[in-house]
Every structure is written in C-alpha cells, then in structure tokens.
C-alpha cells in the first residue's frame, strides 16, 4: 500500500484545540506521527516580563482556559517563595478546596471532550452540565465563571461567602448521585471497553523517560502526585488516596481520571470539615511599589493533567525577569503522543490524544 501524509488538525473535526498532528499512514495504520504545535502561541512568558508582579495575576490564568486555577496557584506560589510572603492558614485550606473543585470541573470538561469524541453524546452533555454547576460555585465565590482570578500572592482574593460550603457540598452530592448513571452509560459500557482496552499503551519506563506525569504515569502503576511528593497548600493536613492502574492504556488513563474525580470530591469534604477560621489574605506591598529581591524560584503543583511547574526569576525589579512554565501537555502532547500513535489505528488518534488530556494552549502558551 501507498504511504500517505495526513494532516490531523487544526481544522480536522476530531481535533480538540488549536493543535495539529501530521500523520504518515499506510491504510488505516499510522507509521509515524509528528506533533505540530504553534497555532496558539500568544507569548505569555514574554508578556509577563513587561507586567508588574500584580498585573501578572489576572494574566496567568488565561494560559489555560480548561483549568485556569492551577496557573494562578503556581504563579502565586512562585511569587510568595521569591518574596518570602507568609500565608494565613485559612487561605491555604481555601486554596486546596478551590483547587480540588477546579480539578473536578476540569476533569468533567475533559470527559466531555473525550466522550464526545468517542460518540457518547449523552455523557458528554451530562459532563458539560455538571461542569456548569461547578462554574456556578466559582461564580459565587470569585465573580467569574471561567477565569476566576482568585488566588493571588498573599492568599486568596475574598473569603467564602456565607453558607458557601453548604452549597458546595449540596452541588457535589447532586453530581455524585449521577455516578452510577455515568458508569452504566459510559465507564462500564462494553463499547467503551472495546474501544480503549490495549489502545495507546505507554509503559512505565517509557512514560518516565519521556516526561510523563499525571494520569499518564499513574495509569502505569506509579502513584506520582505532587500533592504527595511535595505537598503545598493544605494537602499535607488531610489524608487522601492516589488512584492508579497498571496497564498504561487509554482505558486505564480514563479510569484513573474517573477515580480521581471521586477522590477529589471526598477530599473536598475532608477539607471543609477541617477548614480553620481566620484571615484569608496577608497584604502584599503597594502594587506600584513592589520590587522583589534578586533570585529565582521553581514551584510545582499537581494540575488536573499532571505536574505543572513555574520557573520565575527576579532581577530585583518590579517585574519578572524571566518566566517559564513547565506544562504537562507539553511532554504529553509532543513526545509521548508521537510515540503512542506509532502503529495505532487512524480512528484512535483523538482517542489516544484526549486520554492524555492534551490541552493545546498549554503547549504553546
């Protein structure tokens, strides 16, 4: 058969996000896959060098529309580390609750993309609807639905409104009640099983070698999670599990995501129970007169797609000297995806890509 070069994205219907993969195929079989990013480069890292420490705070979340919250967190943490800012305890706990809520919302969004791509439209709509309920919570807490602009250096921007935790618990319960429906329709569905089992396999050695983090690594049996490895916010104050699977295929990755969502909800309940009282914000210096001493910091958090890091350098001025994000989609979408697609069927490109939760804006920044 003849070898053909195919462009999967950015216009291809199966593609999610402004991203492209060039495929060399023979029949339905992929011989070689070349990831082709760059359609969404907005120059965030450079932009941030021209904005003051405070002005960067509303900017960072926009790097990743799917889950802006961990971007805020990683920026706030890096600035706090550089400037030596202490946080009130309650702020740490609120941050954890907020980030777990973001994780659930983000996974639901991912589930929408994934099930939609596989043709499970009903589940996709459920996931989108349930994500919207979580956005309602974010709206009440922060005033924004998608870009929350909430975690800022020094703590969080506002305290929980009166009765907010009750409404949060209520919403999460109402979503939780639908888990059996999700299982019946999707996770335990033989069609899903057949489409995913043994597909897009990545071994633990390969995943480790090529920079796999998050579900990619956890689906190979390695319980690697920054929340445990290098606890931040209030994650060392409560007990929680890291769901893992052994096979390293699409099925394992999606099941890890499902289990993670459920674990996150349990984690939120535990955090609400232990939530201390007190202040939520320690004032930072006047934003027009804020210089941070010379130095560099690298901080990392566990985003819904895996380890998200930020390298921040200050030359003693009122703006960052250099900013660099280490995003999980970068290694997942470029290196691992190219390897995992080799030998796969053309119809599984989206299947494998979204199971790794590749988010294009995170690759390009």
């Amino acid at each position, binding site marked *: 058969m003849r070898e053909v070069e195919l462009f999967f994205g950015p216009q291809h219907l199966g593609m999610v996000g402004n991203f492209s993969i060039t495929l060399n195929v023979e029949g339905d079989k992929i011989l070689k896959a070349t990831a082709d990013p760059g359609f969404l480069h907005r120059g965030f890292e450079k932009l941030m060098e021209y*904005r003051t420490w*405070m*002005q*960067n*705070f*509303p*900017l960072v979340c*926009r790097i990743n529309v799917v889950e802006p919250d961990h971007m805020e967190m990683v920026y706030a943490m890096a600035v706090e580390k550089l400037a030596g800012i202490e946080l009130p305890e309650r702020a740490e706990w609120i941050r954890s609750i907020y980030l777990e809520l973001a994780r659930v919302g983000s996974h639901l969004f991912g589930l929408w993309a994934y099930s939609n791509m596989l043709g499970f439209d*009903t589940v996709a709509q459920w996931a989108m*609807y349930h994500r919207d309920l979580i956005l*309602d919570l974010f*709206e*009440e*807490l*922060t*005033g*924004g639905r998608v*870009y929350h*602009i909430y975690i800022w250096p020094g703590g969080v*921007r*506002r305290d929980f*409104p009166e009765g907010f935790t009750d409404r949060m618990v209520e919403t999460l319960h109402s979503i939780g009640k639908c888990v059996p*429906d999700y*299982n*019946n*329709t*999707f*996770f*335990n*569905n*033989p*069609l899903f*099983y057949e489409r995913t089992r043994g597909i897009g396999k990545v071994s633990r050695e390969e995943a480790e070698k090529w920079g796999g983090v998050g579900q990619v690594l956890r689906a190979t049996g390695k319980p690697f999670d920054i929340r445990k490895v290098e606890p931040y916010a209030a994650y060392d104050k409560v007990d929680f599990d890291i769901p893992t699977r052994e096979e390293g295929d699409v099925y394992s990755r999606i*099941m890890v995501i499902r289990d993670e969502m459920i674990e996150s909800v349990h984690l939120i309940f535990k955090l609400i129970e232990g939530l201390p009282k007190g202040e939520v*914000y320690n*004032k930072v*210096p*006047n*934003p*027009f*007169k804020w210089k941070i001493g010379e130095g560099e910091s690298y901080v990392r958090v566990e985003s819904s797609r895996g380890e998200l890091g930020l390298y921040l350098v200050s030359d003693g001025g009122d703006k960052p000297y250099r900013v660099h994000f280490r995003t999980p989609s970068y290694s997942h979408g470029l290196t691992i995806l190219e390897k995992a697609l080799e030998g796969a069927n053309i119809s599984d490109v989206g299947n494998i890509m979204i199971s790794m939760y590749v988010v294009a804006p995170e690759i390009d920044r």
Partner: protein
Amino acid sequence: MDKKTSILSPLKALKYLFKKPKTLRYPFELKEPAERYRGLHLNDWDQCTGCGNCADICPNEAILMKEIPEIEAKDGERNERPEIDYGRCCFCGLCVDICPTGSLRLSRDYFHIHFDPKTFKLLAKDEKTDEEHFLPEGEYSILKASLTHRRENYEGFSSDLEYSLFDPERVQMSQASPKERKSSFIEQVKGFSAQEAQKEANRCLECKLCEEVCPAGMNIVDYVRNLWEGNLEEAVRDIYKTNPLPGVCGRVCTHNCESACVLSHRGEPVSIRWLKRYVADNLSLSEYQKVLETEKIKSVGKKIAIVGAGPGGLAAAYYLRLMGYEVVVFEKLPEPGGMLRYGIPEYRLPYEALDKDIEYIKSVGVEIKCNTSVGKDISLAELRDNYDAVFVSTGFHKGRSTGVPGSKNPHVFQAIELLRKVTMGEEIEVTDKIVVIGGGDVAMDISRTLARLQMKKFKAVDITLSALETRDIMPATPEEIEEALEEGIKMYPGWGPEKIILEKKSVKGMAMKKCLRVFDEEGKFNPEFDEKKKKEFECSMVVEAIGQAPDFTFLSEDIKEKLKYEGRRMKVDEYGQTSLPWLFIGGDILRGPDVINAIDTGHKAAKGIDKFISSKEKK
C-alpha cells in the same frame, strides 16, 4: 470494581427523557448572576477623585482618564473620570481593588452587542449620576441590555478595604507620652526609623493629587519614591528644588498634601510630612552640600536685600543665592527664623532642626544680619539705594486684642509676645490659674507652653481655653486640640469673652458668654452671643490668642504713598512684585500665616527678582 455491564445497560439513561430539562430557555428563563459577579463597570462620580490609580493598575491599558469639563474639581481632586474600553478590559477587577475611594465597582450587567467598535467605550457612571441609562427593574429589558441600557441597583464585585491593594493604615509614629511632654520641652514626635519610613513611603500610590495642592508645588511623589528606594540623596535633591526648609516643614507644615491624599478618603493619608522630616534628619550638613552641589556658585555681581529672616525671607535668599546674587538678610530679632523660632514652641520644632536648615542656607553664602531692624537701624530707602532689589517678608508679629473691658490690664498678655519671650529665655510670671482666649494653633501653642511652665513651677496644670468656635469648626489642627486635651488643658469651645474681672488692678477671673454663631449667612466673621448664658472662670492671668497682624511701621510715608493697594492689601503680581518695581513682598504679609505658603512666596519672589533684574539689564 470494573465490571463490563450488558450492552443494553446504557439504555437506563433513557429515564432522563421523562425529566424536566435543566437547560435555561434564554431570554424567557434568566439566570441571576452571583452577587460578586464581575461585569460592566460602575463609578460614583461624586466620590471619584480622578486620581487615576485604576488606569495605572489596569494590565490591559483599558482605562483612560478623560477630562470632564462639566465637573468642577474640588481641592485635591481632578475633573477626570475613567473611560473603559471593553475591547481591552478583561474584567479582572484590579481597578476595583485599587480604587482608594471605593467609587469604582463592577455591576452584574454583562451584555453589550453592537456592530460599531466605537460603542465599546464607556465613561463609567452609576444610577446616582446617570438616571437616563440606569433603569429600574420594571423599565429594564434584557433584550435591550447594553452599555447604555443598564439595570439600577445591580452592583456586583465591589471594593473591600480588607482585600484592597493599598494599605489604609499608616505606620504609627512614636510620640512622647502626655506626662513626659508636660514636664519638659522635649520634642513630642520622635520620628520614623529607617524601616518605618520605608514602609510608610511604600503606601504612596503616586497619583500626585498631593502635588497639586502643595502651595510650594513640591515633588512629593518623587521624594517619597526615592526615600522608599533608599536613595536619600536623590530625595533631598527633589525636596530642595522647591523647599529649602525640609527640617522645618517636615515638622510643622500644615500638610495640605495629606488632606488631599487619596488614601484619606477611606483610611489614613500617607505621612508625607514625617517622611520629609526623615529625609532631612538623616543627612548631615556636609552631605547636603555634596549632594546639592552648592559648593561653587558663580556670582552675578548683583545685590539683593531681604527684610525678615523667616521662612519667606530664607527661601527667597536661598534661591537668589543659587542664581548667583549677593544676598543680605536683615533680621530684627537676635536670631534668624522669624515665627519658626519665636512663634512655634520648641516641643514642636526644636531649635537644632531649625538651625540645621538655616546653617545650610548660610553655608551657600547668604549673609544674615541679626539685631538689625529695618525702619529703625536702617531705612528701606537706604536698602533701595544700595541694593538692586528688596524682598520684604516681615511676618505677623503683632497680636490682636479682644478689646473687652479689662484687656488693657498688665496681667492680660498677647500669646505671640509670650511665645517670643519663652524663646528668648526671658522670665514670664506664670500664675497657677490661666485663661487662654482663642481656638487656633497659636492658642494651642501658648496653652501647651504655659502648661509646661506651670508644671515646672507648681507641679500642676490649670489652664482653661475658650474659643468662639465649637469644636468641629475650631481652626486649630485636630491633633493639636487632642494633644492639648491630653496634657490637661480644659477646653470650652463655643464661648466668647465678655470682660476680664479685675479686683484692685489684678486679674480675678474671666466672664464669658455663650457664642451662638461665629459667621453670618454671608460667611463673614460676625459673632452673635446669648447674653443670658454666662460663665465665669477664676484666674489670675489671661492670654489673648485670637489672631496676629502685620506691622508695617518700617514703610516710610513717601514709600507708602507711592504703593498701590487693592482694598487693604498691597497690589502685587504673581511674583510678589509691588507697584514699586524694586520692592517685592512675601510670607505672611502676602498670604497670611503659613510656613509652606511663605516658602512659596519666597521662591516666587526669587524668580521674579531675577526676571526684574535681567529685564533691567537688557534696557
């Protein structure tokens, strides 16, 4: 846990077919945005000061401060209001968190659909100032919602001081306790430490509203920033551009800047005055000379005479000297400083601080001839003939009397004369019970000075202060009143003097009557009394501190005749130049008693004299 179910199990989802759909049918079913919703802007134009901090913080440069000619800006405010470009705005709300007055908020409105990009700009207002576009719920329609069709009382994300981006509280200044103060003339305000000064300087938002109200037009933002950066040398350079008496003004300035400070609307203003003092106190005289590069001044060979070594005269002398003029200052009293030395008590302005400022002015080559009274020892006409120009700032050194029966008694004193005697070290016969009449700063100064002397002599304070004005309109600065009360001075605001009770030529008491109003409907001083409501205070000494007046006896008749007047004041131009071109005036006699105004008149006169002399040369 994973179990493969039957291929038919997904059919269970069909049960949802019989449930009510959760999606909203817009616009018939509306979703109410959350209370903190970050939507389109609201701005209360009455509260907004036009400071422009919102425009400065905006990460997207979406805010432009637009001049609104219809707005008559109050003192310390600008007639500019923020215009938001919704093509750029990212609804982050940093503008709300930086707004010092809290006038800028976000509403829960978020709709605007239009083909014309020009319509995406909005001069934010709220229902208070824009009734046309903010509609009550009944008249509002979501189908028409836009930047100019808004719902009233629909506030979303708004400012909260606890989470604001500025610090509403100032760094507390350490002060001597009332007990410590009463028993000596030690300086009350102890001054900032380096760390405190830096922290306080950090609070300044740099909107420059303060600079617009400073009579001397000082570069406040620049020196506060330089102080914050630890660059005291640059800070002192900024200060000396417009004010050669930082040690003095850093202590006793009337600080219009602080009243205008935008942080004062919901918090405490930046302690600009104490910051200036910190700069002045932390550089030595020799450092001044090095930093200000005044070691080599080229002489232009012209001579200027200055009458009066108060703040006006000293400022004029300094700036004229910098321009290369030979300057001689004639001072009637034994030491230079004028009212700063002989009017302001030592605990507010220690002589060392004043001396340091004056020493520096002398060190650049200004000659000060003390104990030389113009009009007595040397005439103004002589100065006119021997010098190229004359600047007069003789100040308000004459006290005003109440003129009530008994006020001519030798035990009735003028505050200003007593203060002068204290400075000169002359003995004052302080009695154990004193009544002070007046509600201004001088009344506070003399009461507190006498309290210290009473403490020394009798180990107790018994001073009664009565003022025509009620406490809320008393002209003295609120801190002064507070501190006087702390030191044990009894205050009776709203009482006017009736007569001084005498017995065998000595003072026995003071009779007062209730003051109903101080100013009439036209705002003129015209007190009205309740003749039935009276009070008597027992005392053996009365001090009048109801105001000061200039003394123009140095003007000879022929000069007086040649001068032109506007009402009772001498006619002068913007530089203080009178109708006799060689004669400039400034200080209190031009603008009334105030240090920083005096410095400004001195500085302006220096420029005016330079202009006058250069124009004379051209001819």
